[in-house]
Structures are given as C-alpha cells and as structure tokens.
C-alpha cells in the first residue's frame, strides 16, 4: 500500500509469519507460537525457581516475584473480590505475568512481535475465563439463582422494561463479555504493533532520503516505544482485573 509516497507493508505481512517447524501439518509452528512457548517457560521458570529457593529476606528475583504477587493481591483481588478472592491468587498472578510477557515482546529488539496481536491466544484465554466464571456462578448460586442475578431479575424492574432488559443483559453478560475481553487485548496490541511499524518505516524512509528529516519521527518512535511498554503493562492489568471482576460477580451478585 502506497501512502504519501512511502511503501507501507500490508497488515498481513506485519503479523503473519512463515512456519518454522512441522511445515504443512495443522500443527505448524511459527515465530508467534515459539514466543508463546518462551513466555510460558519464562513464567514457569521464574515462579518455580524462586518458589523453590524462597528465603525470609528476599534477594534478586524473589523481590520481583514478591512485588508481582503483592501487586495482584492488593491492587486486583482485594479491590474487586475481597478476601474470599485470595483463593484465585495463583491463577491471576500467572495470568498477569503471562499476558505481560507476551505483550512486552512487542518492544524487545530483534523480537518485536506481541503474541497477543494474533487473535488465537486472547480468544483462548477469554474462553478459559468464560468457562471459569460461569461454572463458579453455577456452583455458588445454582442455575436459577445465577440466571436471576445475571439477567437482572432481582433488580425489581417493571415487567414492561424486563422484556427489553432480559435480552440485553443476556447478550452483554454471556456473549459480549468474553468477546470484548479478547478483542480489547488483541486490538490494543495490534494497534500498538502497527503504530510502531508505521513510524519505523517512516523513519527509515526519511533517513535514507534526508538525514535530518528522520529526527522528528525517530524521536516520536522512541517515545512510542516507552508508551507501548506502558500499554503492555496496562493491558495485562486490565485483563487480570476484568477476570477478577467477572469471577467476583459470579461469586457475589450485585444487590
């Protein structure tokens, strides 16, 4: 696609990678899958190694891990689910760290591909969250109670409005929630990746044409890298806190 006399690569070239292993089979492995495995190994290794050699006075990596756990406990779980939600600490800490590491690959030089810019991983994680919060709701409140609180029957609205309210609540709480959870993460990461690629192409083209012209887009590119680090952390936080909110709502319905 040509825009302003610059050759921008099409979107498919920025996010689709050739298979590296097991070519031609349905289980072909490309760069995104390798990065996903790397993120999984980093998360597992970090928590496993630190958890095995935990000391009373934390040093090095244990400081980092303890601050992650404290952050998820204080900022996510206690704010949204209360003390009963502490049961979900391992799940939410693992989810926060995994999503953050998958996102931060976006700004690491020579890798520069957020795993969550492909729909597969966010969609799968949203599916897991959907199954978890629905089964928690069914277990804690029973089928009738869960449907009553989810569909807004307990709010005491008049019958005429209930006819409109029921389908809206059903669609928004059961169908749209996992979809928007996945799309929020996916679209934020895709947009960040595209913006970085756009400014990188612009900087390179202006540098090869006029050396001085690359100063402005180049400095903006550096600022955007910092911004994308912030967005990676923020999206991991939002994914985790929304998971906590959905599980908390399933455990204790709103009154």
């Amino acid at each position, binding site marked *: 696609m040509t825009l302003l006399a610059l050759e921008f690569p099409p979107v498919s070239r920025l996010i689709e990678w050739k298979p590296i292993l097991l070519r031609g089979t349905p289980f072909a492995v490309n760069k995104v899958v390798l990065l996903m495995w790397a993120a999984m190994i980093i998360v597992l290794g970090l928590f496993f190694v630190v958890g095995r050699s935990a000391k009373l006075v934390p040093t090095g990596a244990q400081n980092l891990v303890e601050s992650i756990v404290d952050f998820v406990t204080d*900022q996510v779980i206690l704010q*949204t689910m209360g003390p009963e939600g502490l049961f979900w600490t391992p799940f939410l800490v693992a989810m926060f760290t995994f999503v953050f590491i998958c996102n931060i690959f976006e700004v690491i030089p020579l890798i520069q591909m957020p795993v969550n810019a492909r729909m597969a991983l966010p969609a799968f994680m949203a599916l897991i969250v959907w199954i978890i919060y629905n089964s928690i709701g069914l277990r804690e409140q029973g089928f009738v109670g869960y449907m009553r609180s989810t569909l807004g029957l307990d709010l005491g609205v008049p019958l005429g409005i209930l006819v409109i309210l029921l389908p809206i609540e059903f669609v928004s709480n059961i169908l749209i929630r996992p979809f*928007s959870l996945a*799309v*929020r993460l*996916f679209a934020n990461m895709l*947009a960040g990746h595209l913006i970085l690629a756009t400014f990188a192409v612009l900087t390179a083209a202006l540098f090869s044409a006029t050396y001085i012209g690359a100063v402005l887009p180049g400095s903006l590119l550096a600022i955007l890298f910092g911004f994308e680090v912030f967005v990676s952390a*923020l999206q991991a936080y939002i994914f985790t806190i*929304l998971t906590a909110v959905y599980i908390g709502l399933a455990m204790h319905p709103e009154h």
Partner: protein
Amino acid sequence: MIHVLAAQNPGELSAGLKTVGAGIVYGGAAIGPGIGIGIVVGNAISAMSRQPETAGMVRTTMFLGIALTEALALFGFVLSFLLKG
C-alpha cells in the same frame, strides 16, 4: 467526476470504496468512546482531588471504566481491518 470514476477499473473502485468505508467505520467508532473516556477520566480526577485518600480505589475503577468504554472503539478498529481485507 463520474466519467473519471467510470473509466477506472471497477475492481480498483471497489477497493477504494472499501478503504473509504474502513476509514468511516473507524472514525465513527472513535467518537463515542472518545467522549466517554473523557467523562470517565474527568470525573475520576475531580473525585481524586476532592478526596485524595480514596485515590487508589478511584484509579482502579477509572481503569476499569476506561477499559469498558474503550472496547467499542477497538471493535471499530478491528472491523475496519475486516472490511478492508
């Protein structure tokens, strides 16, 4: 203008219209969430300045509100790519 358009390759015209449609979709989808996030953040700032001791709780809720509002703009962003492709 019509003659110029008619002389063009019809496939090219349809690709161009798709691009225009994608732009309109994203532009339209960004209006509402833009206003909404402005309201959310503005009210969060006034709440924080009135009661600085509740700033932590307000900030958490503000990020939640931003995330829920922003989803609509991101639907438009994804839809614009689906329309183009």
